[in-house]
């Protein structure tokens, strides 16, 4: 008879180098390298001087680290007649992004709140029409908007672009907020009404404080979208109010003189920095908000 006391006991031992783990982490590693390589090339190139770049070893780390390309991209690179680098575009972009983000989120939050909790006659139709807006290609509307902006006298100004961004952000953001507020228990809304809170009272004191995740989602979507926007920026502004993306394009695609790859790389990295920072700060909340908004349609 077998010795029953020698049977397995306690926690089951786990093999770290199992076939499954090797496959899993191997694939993850390869994919990470694949996605990180271009970023690596950009960073090292931006830190090299031009003579070193001309040697052609794009993967080799810089022998002599120089921040000169970054300085030049930020403060000296020329676009057209202006030679004050990306800094001008950066501040333009800030001036476009901040009011656009605040305005579009504020309007969309109120929209979503009204559409989900204060259902009025025709609310569904109104919402459906708004959503259709998300599926119409932007290009169709470019010229009509130019005319509208010209007629109301804000064509070529920052405020014109802010208005355009607010309008184009509306469908998707309203959808986002409507779905989020639909998932708020209805009894909470009823309780607030019995407690005498009105439309704005319930919105500002009950709904907004419990909606941080969805506001973060909207913030990330809008900051990224508006900061990275090129098309509207180039159409609805003038050269001295060009956003950073347009200026970046003008620097990188300039046909005069020698192509300064290190400056281009630094300029591109600088331009991408803002959305990246926003994402790293609030990424966790972003995922939570997306999940919460998806619960109920």
């Amino acid at each position, binding site marked *: 008879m077998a010795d029953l006391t020698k049977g397995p006991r306690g926690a089951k031992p786990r093999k770290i180098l199992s076939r499954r783990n090797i496959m899993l982490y191997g694939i993850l590693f390869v994919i990470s390298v694949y996605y990180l390589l271009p970023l690596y090339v950009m960073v090292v190139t931006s830190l090299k001087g031009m003579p070193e770049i001309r040697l052609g070893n794009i993967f080799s780390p810089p022998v002599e680290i120089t921040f000169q390309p970054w300085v030049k991209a930020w403060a000296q690179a020329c676009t057209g007649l202006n030679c004050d680098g990306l800094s001008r575009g950066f501040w333009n972009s800030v001036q476009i992004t901040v009011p656009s983000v605040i305005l579009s989120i504020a309007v969309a939050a109120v929209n979503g709140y009204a559409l989900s909790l204060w259902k009025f006659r025709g609310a569904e139709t109104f919402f459906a029409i708004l959503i259709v807006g998300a599926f119409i290609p932007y290009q169709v509307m470019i010229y009509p908007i130019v005319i509208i902006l010209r007629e109301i006298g804000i064509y070529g100004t920052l405020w014109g672009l802010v208005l355009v961004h607010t309008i184009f952000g509306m469908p998707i953001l309203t959808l986002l907020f409507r779905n989020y507020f639909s998932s708020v228990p209805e*009894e*909470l809304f009823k309780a*607030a009404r*019995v*407690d005498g*809170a009105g439309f704005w009272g319930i919105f500002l004191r009950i709904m907004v404080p419990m909606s941080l995740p969805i506001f973060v989602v909207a913030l990330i979507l809008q900051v990224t979208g508006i900061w990275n926007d090129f098309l509207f920026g180039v159409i609805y502004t003038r050269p001295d109010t060009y956003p950073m993306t347009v200026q970046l394009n003008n620097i990188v695609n300039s046909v005069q003189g020698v192509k300064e790859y290190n400056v281009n790389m630094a300029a591109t990295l600088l331009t991408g920095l803002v959305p990246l920072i926003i994402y790293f700060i609030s990424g966790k909340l972003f995922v939570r908000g997306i999940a919460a908004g998806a619960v109920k349609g």
Partner: protein
Amino acid sequence: MHSISVRDLTLNFGSHAVLKTMNLDVAEGEFIVLLGPSGCGKSTLLNCIAGLLDISDGEIWIKGQNVTWAEPSERGIGMVFQSYALYPQMTVRGNLSFGLKNARMPKAEIESRVARAAKILQIEPLLDRKPGALSGGQRQRVAIGRALVRDVDVFLFDEPLSNLDAKLRAELRVEIKRLHSRLNNTMVYVTHDQIEALTLADRIAVMKGGVIQQLDAPQVIYNRPANLFVAGFIGSPAMNFLPGAVVDGGRSFRLGEHSIALEGYDGRAVDLPRAILGLRPEHIAIATDPRPGTSLPAVVELDEPMGADSLVWLKAAGQQMSVRVPVERRLEPGTPVYLHLDLPKASLFDAATEQRI
């Protein structure tokens, strides 16, 4: 003066009538329970009284005021919800004072009211916590407190105990009853739990299909149900129904080849070809000998001991019946017995109209 008066209230959702010309008068200090299966319109009626739903027709009066078009906050009501509906980002104190702040009440008054409500409900140690840090029972206490601080005469409860476990539910039920006897304000309480209804109510309104089927004291509802629906809905285990006919000028009930004398039954004396005799399980006794005229032969099928008493399932005249007996009395399946029927406590229904005769 009635505390609440609902007059000819009608509510349509599209073409579907949810409440049909409903009338309900609630006396001052009365505890009314709206009871019914889900979808019967009981919560809808409560929401109409609260002003959370706009009605299609009729009037609602509270405390002598026509509040049909008034906002919920103007109606002088406090409301407690099933899901507690506490504001998650506010402390208990914030939850209690939110409505008072909206009414622009002086700070000192708010504080004294919150303190008083917290004392009554024994939630003083919880005042600075957020709802997330409270248990279900504590949350519901806070929700009741939110109605309490409003210092109103009418309390509306929308299935307040349904989210709690059985033990807490029994505890809070007693607490609500105690609260009512202490404050003596009008309470309208929606539930689908008949125990809650029978224990709490001064009067129960049994609802089905947007219509009040019967509105009466719990004992009357239990002992003299107005129709088949009420008879079947109230009571657990359910009433036994025996289909048959009333014959001999209303003096006896024919059940197949058996005849039961309707001795002591106080209904109208008419013959009916199709009638239903209803008997609660505790109004039947099991005996070994027949009793002429008021007994039925039966065969034991199963017995279910339920702790305090035991439920015996039998077959009599082709019908399944249940009888409540003391738990010590064990009956083997297959035993032939006689059922002695307590006819003065029976209910007789017209099978066609389903109304009590």
